[in-house]
């Protein structure tokens, strides 16, 4: 059925489209203007007035970012933690979910209660951090992966997916003499691709964006992910620009901390923005899975 709109409602439509269109621009604009400024010469950017396009086009800011190895090293760490962290999380969390989805599992109730309690109580920040250091995870790549191997919340989502899977799939393999581990890898995991993909994507974004764990636990710059590198660049740019304000001669060169920071931001978010259009619907699906559970 098609609803006919009155004149007043048609006028409302015009305003609605204009308003939402402006909002859409507002969501994109910060990215746009930072890209424009990152391609603009640093001394010129300092004069202000870059709103839409670079005025004095240059690649010097990016040259400065890629000048030393640290950005490549940081990218390597970010990619490594994203890949290893996500695969590890999916594997271990779904193994736990599979075990707990079996009604005949001995001590199932105890195990499950131990899981649920952690959703309501936690040690809080200080004991948690002290614990990580005492475990010897400080200054090690493992600190990006091991504390994230499990999530009770994700476990419950995966478990409800396993519970809904038809039993007949597993039974035929069982008759052939396959053990639970083989069934899990050969039959259950391949059939759970949908739920694993959505949870995996959310985990991957979390790993890609994580910085605070590195900030807390890792002093060694070789182990810094891109996000922490960016945090350091912005923090030093902030203090540098105070110095610049007092002594403008510092910016005599063609790059400034501010413009290097702009280029670093773009280097850090580039991949997310590039893959975002292709994965967007899976992210939304992931959000809905969580919501239905609630």
């Amino acid at each position, binding site marked *: 059925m098609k609803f006919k709109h009155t004149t007043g409602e048609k006028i409302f439509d015009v305003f609605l489209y204009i308003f939402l*269109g402006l909002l859409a621009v507002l969501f994109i604009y910060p990215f746009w203007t930072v890209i424009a400024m990152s391609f603009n010469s640093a001394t010129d950017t300092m004069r202000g007035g870059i*709103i839409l396009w670079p005025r004095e086009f240059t690649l010097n800011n990016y040259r400065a970012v890629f000048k030393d190895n640290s950005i490549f090293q940081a990218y390597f760490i970010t990619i490594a933690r994203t890949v290893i962290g996500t695969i590890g999380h999916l594997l271990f969390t779904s193994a736990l979910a599979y075990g707990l989805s079996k009604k005949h599992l*001995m001590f199932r109730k105890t195990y499950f209660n131990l899981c649920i309690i952690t959703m309501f109580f936690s040690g*809080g*920040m200080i004991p948690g951090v002290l614990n990580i250091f005492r475990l010897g995870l400080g200054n090690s790549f493992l600190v990006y992966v091991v504390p994230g191997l499990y999530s009770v919340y994700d*476990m419950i989502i995966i478990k409800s997916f396993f519970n809904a899977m038809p039993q007949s799939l597993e039974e035929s393999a069982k008759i052939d003499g396959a053990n639970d581990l083989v069934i899990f890898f050969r039959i259950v995991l391949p059939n759970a691709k949908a739920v694993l993909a959505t949870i995996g994507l959310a985990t991957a974004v979390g790993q890609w964006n994580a910085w605070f764990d590195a900030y807390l636990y890792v002093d060694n710059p070789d182990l810094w992910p891109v996000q922490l590198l960016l945090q350091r660049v912005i923090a030093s740019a902030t203090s540098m620009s105070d110095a610049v304000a007092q002594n403008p001669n510092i910016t005599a060169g063609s790059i400034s901390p501010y413009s290097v920071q702009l280029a670093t931001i773009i280097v850090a978010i580039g991949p997310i923005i590039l893959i975002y259009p292709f994965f967007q619907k899976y992210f*939304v699906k992931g*959000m809905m899975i969580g919501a239905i559970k609630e």
Partner: protein
Amino acid sequence: MTDHSKSKTKLFLKKLLNQRWLQIMVIPGIIWLVIFCYIPMYGIIIAFQDYTPGNPFWGGSFVGFKHFIAFFNDKYAIQAVWNTLRISFIKLIVTFPAPIIFALLLNEVTSTRFKKLVQSVSYLPYFISWVVMWGLLYALLNINGPLNTVLEELGILDEHIAFLARVDAFIPIAVLSDLWKGVGWSSILYLAAISNVPQDMYEAAYIDGASRLQRCLHITLPSIMPTVTIMLILAVSGILGSNFDQHLLLQNANNVSVARTIDVYVYNMGLQTGRYSYATAVNLARSIVSFFLLYAADRLSRWVSHGERGLF
């Protein structure tokens, strides 16, 4: 041992052996929970001790409620509580209704392509980290950045302002950046609730001569009210929490008197100043109050929905 209990033990072991692979899949998870969740939970005990780093959580000597008493006499801690309540309250007023209105407006859009475009674009900020967000803010609000330029050209500002360094700009920046980052993503839940409203209700209302505004206010809005209620109760119960990343990053020497929330104060005291026991005590006090807020929220939610919907 009697024969009976012997055979019982045998049966038990046989059953365990039969499901050894299942147990092997579960037990590492339980060990992980003990190491990464239960030991830190036990570690809360240091709130009642004078903890020095390097020691295990057990075996310290107790000092009673010393740190809790210190908390109530610490004017910076009280300031942090006040800051947290104030910012949470303002954020609630601004960022809670925004995604509902956004979803209702999107629902009025008839062009599917335009709607999809606006939606996609609005989710994007959700996927950037707070470090990047901080970088964007720093770039946009810089003394020579685009916002200053635009405001100057419009004649609103006479001279450029370093927004991030101003104490009075902190709350607007914190609230608006939260809004920008989250409004699209939070609207997904409400859009999903709206899509569950049966179409024939709209058709019946249309035939009865209900205008578009009336349909929105009398069909769509009441239909998503249960979702709104739950989200509101959850939001209110989280009022003692704050956006830690945002506050830690945006905090500087100029705005610390407004920007420092309980979370950040716990971090400052515990991990930067080294007062581990004191910071744990502050956090424990906060957690206990938060827990009761959540419990009350759950009761309220059940009461509002006549026992149908708890939060858990």
